């Protein structure tokens, strides 16, 4: 919310500067996002009036202007604005002035050979909102040139821009802010004197609750008055200037006054053009599917639990939120119906949320406006309108009555101590509450009971009062207190997280870089990578590219890879650790990696190659090893999900537990994403498993190892890699089994080089024993279709 400093001073007498007040506001929870001090801003600026305009001798588009200031001194100014004319009152920047828009310090200069002693400014140059771009500011012929520039521009002592937390409906008004400041020791709060305007004629129309009990629940009190004979066609210069400075759109005098009034005291009013009302007015619930056309001309279909005021023909106002286009005031409006009412906050909030309608009125009613001041504020508003727009007022008629609420809250010294953690002065604390408008109804050394004022809807429990005391007295007064640390050694979740951190480092050491990507992805991508057949969709995504919760980390890795490859990288190595989601909304942590392109840039020292599934296999095995799973205990199956290449991928299992996938992605994925490079991926699906500790017994004795190499012939289509796990099982003396060579001899056969290393834990193996193990290996391999070469 924006307001001017002088406006604040109507409610607060203070000697402090705008800067000091702003600092204090922030510290008491009314955060000042911005403030401008016109005395600083407009140093070296003055008001001046153009007395003579001549053509510039050396430029067609420039003019030479003689201007005069309040002391009668004249200056020669070169200006190119289209609107320069004698009589225009301009804002003149003198040498030394800092132009707010550009931050440039103005100097005396020659423009096309003619000296200009200053610059006449546009709104834009002063960083003020305006629709006109090229024209210089014209403040009109009646401005006193000795007035300060800030005041003449409506800056009125400076502008303060605050953001109000949702609990403080009362501070969505200048009056409320002034009251808080006064309680915080910034000057004295100046209460408004309540006026009453005599009625000149009888209230001329009929208004009733249609369903009295139901209506009173949500609109407990409504007061109305008619004002006739107003002038809504002549703009009120003062208000227009202030609105312009605040960046608020000026609509018409009567609407501007209602808005100004709302900003001043926090009570939204509604103004109906009386002559556009047809027949009687009923305050009622909306009819099913009833149509409402709002001020901006948007159509809404109302629900039966929303409340409106309506005439015989149509809805006039969606109560507490927005009026209809039909009875909106315009410059021909002469007679108005003024409404000042109280609505239930939750009711307003719900209606606004369902229709997705926001307004200044809604944001105040849903935070709570003063529940006791419907009539007095209507009187004050009437006076304001009569003063600025003329006219005469009717009597006031009232539906319902102010709710009879007496909120008493007790604060205890012990609660004050336990929440703050320190000893605050009891008397000073009670004094703060009193200054905030709470009335002490009883008190002792230990407790005090306060009547909550009608404008503080946010205070209902003891803790609220403690916060008020702390807020105003300031948190600097609370002395820090230590507490003991606890020694925790059994935090399993943290240990798990730490294991994940080290997994990240491990993968980085293996050359993969970590990415973090959005949890929601394009539906088209999500469904291809979904194995469960049930995805979770977002109801209101940012866009359709972020419409579904991911069930695999791979799609985002592909998008990232494409980005890198397009950027000219020859190789990509990335991984992500994050949650994936199932249709039942459950989440699982996954680890996935992607490699694409070549192993490394071309190098004289080492040939590079295109990455393949064995790179991903190694990545997955390294991760499994980090989780304590030995490759020897992993079984490999070939039924990887359909987004993997059907014959270049695998699934690793440990017993009945599916651990993860590795392999080349299916070419259809390349096609879908429009990427030529093979995509080599792995996914570890079970980072949740308990990390097994390694159990390799240590034998301090060393006996010679015996190594044997074999060459076998297999059919080219035979799968031989899985032999190794079985070979280990042949004899405990086999400590290593590896395939060190593999090549095709012709299209039908391939040669496999197998190396075996054996060792006994307690003795040197004899030649006979080695031979025995070798025979076992040969026989086993023969049994699965291998032929020993050379025999």
């Amino acid at each position, binding site marked *: 919310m924006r307001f001017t400093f002088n406006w604040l001073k109507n409610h607060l007498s203070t000697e402090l500067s705008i800067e000091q007040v702003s600092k204090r506001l922030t510290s008491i929870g009314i955060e000042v996002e911005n403030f401008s001090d016109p005395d600083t801003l407009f140093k070296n600026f003055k008001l001046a009036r153009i007395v003579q305009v001549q053509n510039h001798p050396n430029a067609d588009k420039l003019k030479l202007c003689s201007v005069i200031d309040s002391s009668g001194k004249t200056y020669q100014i070169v200006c190119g604005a289209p609107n320069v004319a004698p009589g225009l009152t301009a804002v003149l920047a003198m040498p030394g002035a800092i132009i707010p828009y550009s931050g440039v310090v103005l100097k005396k200069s020659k423009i096309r050979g003619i000296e200009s002693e200053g610059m006449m400014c546009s709104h834009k140059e002063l960083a003020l909102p305006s629709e006109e771009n090229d024209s210089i500011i014209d403040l009109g012929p009646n401005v006193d040139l000795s007035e300060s520039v800030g005041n003449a521009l409506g800056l009125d002592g400076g502008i303060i821009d605050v953001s109000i937390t949702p609990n403080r409906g009362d501070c969505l008004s200048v009056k409320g802010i002034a009251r808080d400041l006064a309680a915080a020791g910034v000057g004295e709060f100046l209460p408004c004197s309540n006026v009453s305007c005599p009625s000149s004629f009888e209230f001329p129309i009929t208004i009733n609750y249609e369903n009295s009990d139901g209506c009173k629940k949500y609109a407990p009190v409504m007061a109305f008055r008619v004002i006739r004979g107003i002038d809504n066609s002549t703009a009120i210069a003062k208000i227009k200037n202030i609105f312009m400075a605040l960046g608020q759109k000026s609509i018409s005098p009567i609407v501007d006054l209602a808005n100004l009034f709302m900003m001043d005291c926090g009570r939204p009013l509604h103004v109906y053009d009386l002559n556009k009302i047809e027949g009687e007015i009923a305050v009622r619930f909306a009819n099913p599917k009833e149509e409402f056309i709002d001020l901006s001309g948007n159509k809404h279909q109302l629900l039966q639990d929303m409340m409106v005021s309506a005439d015989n023909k149509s809805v006039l106002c969606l109560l507490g939120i927005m009026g209809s286009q039909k009875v909106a005031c315009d410059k021909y409006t002469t007679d108005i119906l003024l409404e000042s009412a109280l609505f239930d906050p939750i009711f307003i909030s719900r209606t606004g*949320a369902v229709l997705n309608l926001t307004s200044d009125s809604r944001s105040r009613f849903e935070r709570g406006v003063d529940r006791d001041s419907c009539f007095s504020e209507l009187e004050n508003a009437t006076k304001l309108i009569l003063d600025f727009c003329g006219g005469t007022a009717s009597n006031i008629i009232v539906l319902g009555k102010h709710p009879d609420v007496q909120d008493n809250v007790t604060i205890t010294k012990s609660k004050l101590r336990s929440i703050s953690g320190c000893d605050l002065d009891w008397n000073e604390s009670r004094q703060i509450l009193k200054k905030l408008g709470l009335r002490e109804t009883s008190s002792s050394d230990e407790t005090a009971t306060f009547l909550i004022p009608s404008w503080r809807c946010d205070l209902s429990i003891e803790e609220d009062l403690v916060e008020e005391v702390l807020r105003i007295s300031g948190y600097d007064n609370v002395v820090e*207190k230590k507490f003991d640390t606890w020694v925790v050694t059994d935090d399993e979740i943290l240990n798990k997280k*730490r294991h994940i951190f080290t997994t990240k480092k491990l993968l980085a050491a293996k050359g993969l870089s970590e990415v973090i990507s959005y949890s929601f992805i394009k539906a088209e991508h999500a469904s291809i990578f979904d194995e469960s057949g049930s995805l979770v969709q977002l109801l209101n995504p940012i866009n359709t590219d972020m419409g579904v919760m991911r069930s695999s980390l791979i799609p985002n890795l592909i998008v990232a890879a494409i980005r890198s490859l397009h950027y000219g990288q020859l190789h990509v190595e990335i991984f992500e650790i994050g949650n994936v989601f199932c249709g039942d909304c459950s989440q699982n942590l996954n680890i996935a990696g992607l490699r694409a392109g070549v192993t490394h840039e071309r190098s004289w020292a080492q040939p590079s190659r295109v990455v393949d599934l064995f790179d991903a296999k190694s990545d997955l095995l390294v991760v499994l090893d980090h989780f304590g799973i030995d490759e020897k205990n992993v079984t490999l199956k070939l039924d990887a999900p359909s987004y993997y290449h059907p014959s270049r991928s695998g699934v690793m299992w440990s017993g009945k537990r599916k651990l993860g996938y590795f392999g080349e992605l299916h070419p259809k994925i390349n096609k879908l994403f429009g990427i030529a490079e093979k995509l080599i991926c792995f996914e570890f699906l079970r980072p949740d498993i308990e990390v097994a500790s390694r159990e390799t017994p240590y034998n301090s004795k060393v006996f010679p190892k015996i190594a044997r190499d074999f060459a076998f012939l297999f059919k080219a289509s035979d799968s031989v890699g899985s032999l190794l796990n079985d070979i280990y099982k042949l004899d405990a003396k086999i400590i290593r089994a590896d395939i060190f060579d593999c090549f095709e001899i012709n299209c039908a056969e391939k040669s496999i080089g197998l190396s075996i290393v054996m060792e006994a834990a307690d003795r040197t193996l004899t030649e006979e024993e080695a031979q025995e193990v070798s025979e076992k290996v040969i026989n086993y391999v023969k049994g699965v279709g291998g032929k020993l070469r050379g025999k």
Partner: protein
Amino acid sequence: MSDLDRFFATCLFEIDNCSDLSSIDAVRMAIFGKNGKITEIMKSLKNMTPREKREFGEKINNIKEKVRARLQEKTRTLELDDMEKKLSSEFVDVFMPARPYSPGLVHPLSKTEEEISGVLASYGFRFADGPEIESEYMNFTALNMPDHHPARTMHDTFYMKIPADKDGCKLLRTHTSPVQVRAMLQHKPPLRFFSIGRVFRNDYDATHTPMFSQIEGLMVDIDVGFAHLKWFMSDILKQFFAIPNLALRFRTSFFPFTEPSVEVDINYEIKNGKVVFGTGDKWMEIGGAGVVHPTVLEHGNVDAAKYQGIAFGFGLERLATLKYGVPDLRGYFESDDRWRKSFGFSFFA
């Protein structure tokens, strides 16, 4: 000078004069060989008396030993010279590039998460986890934001396309605070918990991403209040930033789940165009905190008459940005190579 002395001097002279391994071999043969000088000298032995023999023998043995040592030493020197000569011809251009080596990088958010976890754990705070798809009840109602509470509209919430159940709609959690309630429901007080995780808000512009991460902390005990919160916030931030004289400012704010609620600022100044924390009188917002609202304690099955809680929250991206100078929030999630090279961490860091 006796004959033997002369012989000794001659041997040494010949050895020292050798310039390569073949000539030293020749010298060795000439001295110790079958027909060498030693054999020659030994021949004179047969004409001597036993006493002369003993004296001469002793002397010649002494000489032999010294000559052998000199020969060995000279041989080693010549061998080394020989090797050096050979090596200097084995030229390799060491200015050629090394074999390719490109380690990966860890994301700055992971690094920051690890660091702040370590700090919080050191005070005895345990890690608590919660789901990213939350119930409306946990995300709002349990945190003292009943239906149509205006504070709900501050959180631009993503809802899931799933029918509501007794806990309301399913949504993407807008903050990590629901973990507070989950932790209280699972454990009896006194308790200390923290959580770090992804949160989501329907907001996407230059300064907002629809996903970001929060750090949440909760402590519930019999005697814990704002004074403790103040000390704790100050202590953990000093540790995290490794700035012992970091100053904090507490400003009143509003969160429905704490009462009182504050925003926490840390001090800084601009030196040579760079932000320096822990000095100066400018303030930068870093997080929110407060004393837990009694309603929230009740939703967590904690006796609000007996216990009190303090809670706080930070944005993980903000901490990373402030500590490591990462400029733009969007960069965290864009997986850009160049960004990663600037802000990623070596796995040793």
